[in-house]
């Protein structure tokens, strides 16, 4: 039972979230009717290709969907409080302190004219004005040890650090106020593979130490499979599969998720042929009728073209939006 549980019992509950971009050419539904929950010390992976709405989903959780986007319906509750009804002033307090965000590009996410230490002092003093500069710096030094950078580098300017170090700084900034949720939006796309693995492992170990929940947004299914507890697969603004990562890996159900899995290279299968998903994602201004994925789906049935499938709960902790599983519904 993942969906429709009591909002009080989870750290973060998102229910029926729909986000639209109101452009001149029409309304684009970047996220449609998304529901999920997140508990303490849990990692949620959100996987999807560019334009699938995964970043919009992440940004809507701190109500920073860029213009002309707006949240149309849905409830977001954090520790029982409804974020959607919060005023700007309250929201500012949530950002950074209770939900923090690690951005995709560490190269441009730090203010080039401020030293690293000033970033920490500013962040801490924004939320806790009574903290003195020396106290803030002490905390920053502790965070630097936690993320594995030499303390003296705190006196550097952002451009004097490498990409991996900058992303560590971003993570340290995200943890500075001990938030309950950290959203990491493609935290490793701009980094090379070895640094990527280090950063992700760092995030995971810090998650446990600080007792927070982590939302890991990525286009790369392989990096979230082993590191997250549950995974949302998004396609064209829709959650197409929502399952625990064990379930998703052992019994992948949605044809799109299967396609994603087949495109991950496997070191043990030397002569494995990597398969790509044919075609390209739909234009969200004119999405296909019925299931969003049918034009690219090799299992498409007549009913897929006329009506969009609902989420079927095929077993415990496994939801899939595909007619192939409509008879396997797990009624409990």
């Amino acid at each position, binding site marked *: 039972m993942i969906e429709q549980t009591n909002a009080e019992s989870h750290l973060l509950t998102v229910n029926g979230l729909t986000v639209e971009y109101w452009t001149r050419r029409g309304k684009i539904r970047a996220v449609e009717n998304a529901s999920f929950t997140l508990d303490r010390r849990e990692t949620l992976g959100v996987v999807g290709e560019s334009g699938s709405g995964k970043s919009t989903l992440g940004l809507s959780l*701190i109500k*920073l969907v860029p213009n002309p986007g707006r949240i149309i319906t849905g409830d977001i509750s954090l520790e029982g409080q409804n974020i959607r009804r919060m005023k700007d002033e309250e*929201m*500012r*307090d*949530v*950002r*950074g*302190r209770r939900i*923090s*965000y690690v*951005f*995709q*590009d560490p190269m*441009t*996410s*730090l*203010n*080039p*004219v*401020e030293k690293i230490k000033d970033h920490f002092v*500013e*962040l801490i003093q*924004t*939320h806790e004005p009574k903290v003195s500069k020396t106290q803030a710096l002490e905390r920053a030094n502790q965070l630097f040890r936690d993320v594995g950078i030499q303390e003296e580098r705190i006196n550097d*300017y952002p*451009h004097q650090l490498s990409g991996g170090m900058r992303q560590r700084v*971003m993570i340290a*900034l995200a943890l500075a106020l001990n938030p309950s949720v950290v959203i990491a939006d493609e935290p490793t796309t701009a980094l090379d593979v070895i640094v990527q693995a280090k950063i992700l492992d760092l995030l995971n170990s810090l998650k446990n130490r600080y007792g927070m929940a982590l939302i890991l947004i990525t286009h790369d299914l392989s990096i979230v499979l082993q590191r997250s507890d549950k995974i949302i697969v998004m396609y064209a603004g829709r959650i197409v599969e929502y399952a625990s990562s064990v379930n998703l890996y052992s019994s992948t159900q949605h044809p799109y998720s299967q396609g994603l899995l087949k495109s991950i290279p496997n070191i043990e299968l030397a002569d494995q042929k990597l398969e790509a998903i044919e075609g390209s994602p739909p234009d969200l201004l004119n999405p296909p009728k019925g299931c969003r994925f049918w034009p690219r789906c090799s299992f498409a049935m007549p009913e897929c073209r006329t009506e969009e499938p609902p989420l079927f709960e095929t077993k415990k902790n496994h939801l899939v939006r595909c007619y192939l599983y409509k008879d396997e519904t797990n009624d409990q």
Partner: protein
Amino acid sequence: MMGGSSTKKNMFSRLVPLLTSLARRGLAGWFIAIGLIMVIAIVVMTMLAPWISPHDPSAIEMGPPLSPPSSQFPFGTNKLGQDMLSRVISGGGIMIQVALLSVVICMAGGVPIGLLSSYTGGILDRILCLIMDSIYAFPGLVLAIAIALMLGRGVVNMALSIAVVYVPSYFRVIRSQVLSIKEMAYVEAANAIGAKGHTIVSRYILPNVIPSIIVVATVNFADAILTAAGLTFIGLGVSVDIPDWGYDLTVGRTLLTTRVWWVIAFPGIMVVLLALGFTLMGEGLSELWNPRLEQ
């Protein structure tokens, strides 16, 4: 005179360590040091003009009109027989005052308006853009003349009329910079940590715009000198009997084709040196303040 020389000595003894410390900061430091020396030298020369100029700069028929440089008149004389050397020594005062004042007024107006307009955007931005563009559409000198006509003579009025012409330059440069900086990830990140609007403008946007502001200010300064010269020439500046490089330049320009080069060359060189001094200082400062270029 004794008191004057002792303060001068004091100033000088402070200046030397400043210059040597600047020179140690690489090319940018040298730029600032050289620019500073040039500007200070010109300012000091202008201030001491009553004592060091050989003749009265405003007295006519000191010698034969348009006499070329000689031992008696090292810079020659002009059409009225005034000593060019004396005029060069004492002619900078008005120009420096007007140029500095206009740059200060321009910055005080253009920078906040530019930041406000481009950061808030929307209708306000549209309206301000329209106003600034319509000011920009006028030829600078013509607009300055019109405003100077309304305001009347005087250093402050000259500076004001030049400032109005230059505010749109600051506005445009700041606006284009802010529009791109506003979209940078670090501004988005500042939003995501819950920073307030004024914090974002003052700590994230303004420091990143300062190098461009300095560049505009140096161009502004050089242009203000020339516009001030133009205003003086048509009689809207200060009184004609106050020696002024700009006035000499504009008057001397007509004589250039008749091989009378000295009436324009020497005041011209002074204007160029003054503008160059400020430009060097500006260049150096923008480089010194850019953390990306710090060693």
